[in-house]
């Protein structure tokens, strides 16, 4: 009886390990399937603009100017710190919608992300 319990315990542990391994593999491949969409900030312009992506997508903004910029949504739902040259900001859009954003340091710079 004791032996059976032990065997069962080992078997359960083995199944758990396999399940966890399977989950982590699935998780890893999900990340690889959806690399961040790049938006560059260059010459005081966000490009490409607008950007249309599926729900769950991550956008990565990279500042290529010699002047700091930031990325602030008009409704303040996301806001980066000031990005110095070559610094990046990433944000994952989990709900569909149209997100307008701007650089609050240079408000003439505006952009739009459409999440479908």
């Amino acid at each position: 009886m004791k032996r059976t319990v032990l065997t069962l315990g080992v078997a359960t542990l083995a199944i758990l390990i396999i399940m966890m391994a399977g989950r982590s593999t699935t998780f890893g491949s999900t990340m690889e399937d959806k690399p961040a969409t790049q938006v560059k900030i260059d010459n005081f312009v966000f490009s490409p603009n607008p950007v249309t992506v599926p729900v769950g997508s991550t956008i990565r903004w990279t500042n290529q100017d010699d002047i700091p910029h930031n990325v602030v949504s008009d409704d303040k739902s996301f806001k980066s710190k000031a990005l110095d040259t070559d610094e990046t900001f990433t944000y994952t859009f989990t709900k569909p919608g149209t997100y307008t954003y701007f650089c609050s340091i240079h408000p003439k710079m505006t952009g739009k992300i459409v999440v479908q």
Partner: protein
Amino acid sequence: MADKTKDEILHDHNHDGIDRRGFLKCMAWAGTGAFCVMQGGVLKSYSLSGLAGSSAKEMKGELSFVQISDSHMGFNKPANTDVAGTLKAAIDKINALPTQPSFILHTGDITHLSKPEEFDGVDQLLKGASAKDVFYVPGEHDVIGDDGKQYLERYGKNAKGAGWYSFDQKGVHFIGLVNVMNLKAGGLGSLGTEQLEWMESDVKHLSKSTPIVVFAHIPLWSVYPEWGWGTDDSAQALGRLKKFGSVTVLNGHIHQTMQKIEGNVTFHTAASTAFPQPKPGAAPSPGPMKVPAEQLKSVLGIRDVNYVQGKHALGVTDSSLE
């Protein structure tokens, strides 16, 4: 002496409209400093590079002060890898003026990224200036990340709202305005209703002969809205100053000197002490302009302002750091 004649620009408020030759000449200075002399309510402007040829007597008025701008402490990109060095050169230039200024106005972008050590660096260097009083207004680079909290803690002790204030010196009324806060997507610089209302009450008691000097970071006239070089509600601010015979507006932000006269108002933008920016529309963006190292100091500068009671112009003299 020939240099002096070349660089001096005298604006007379009795002339209407823009002195186009003078304006173009100012454009050519791109980035020099300025010395301003209030003479009889009108600001006289001289290029500092020409000051050596000007007599001290000519420069003398009831009040003289210096404007510096856009020191961008912390900037270290190719356009200028030593902004501390060029700010120091600007201070040396101030200390060498024939008439020592009563105080210094700094029209913002003190720092590049609003970092405490950047503010400290500027404070430390300005301790070396002969003029001990420095009056600030913030630039958009001084309020990054904290909505101007740190700026207000450092410089806003006697200020209202986001940092606006006024003071009087030798009969001249100075108004420091903040137009870099709560900027809206797609918009320009902004003063806001609260500040405009404060300004109205601030000038209500003044006689119309009081010379007014308004200073703010972003230009209070439409220099080039495409690059954000203007302030959405500047007309409302200037409208509140209509009764005054002499209004001088001093701005920074665009890293080059420009002047314009509109009725009773003379507008000046100042050079940066850190790096030049392109002329409006002359480049894809208003980013820092790299010039050959040996030319850098010729496009950076300070401005000296002089007031002489009884005359109708403040003298404004821009001079480069060369």
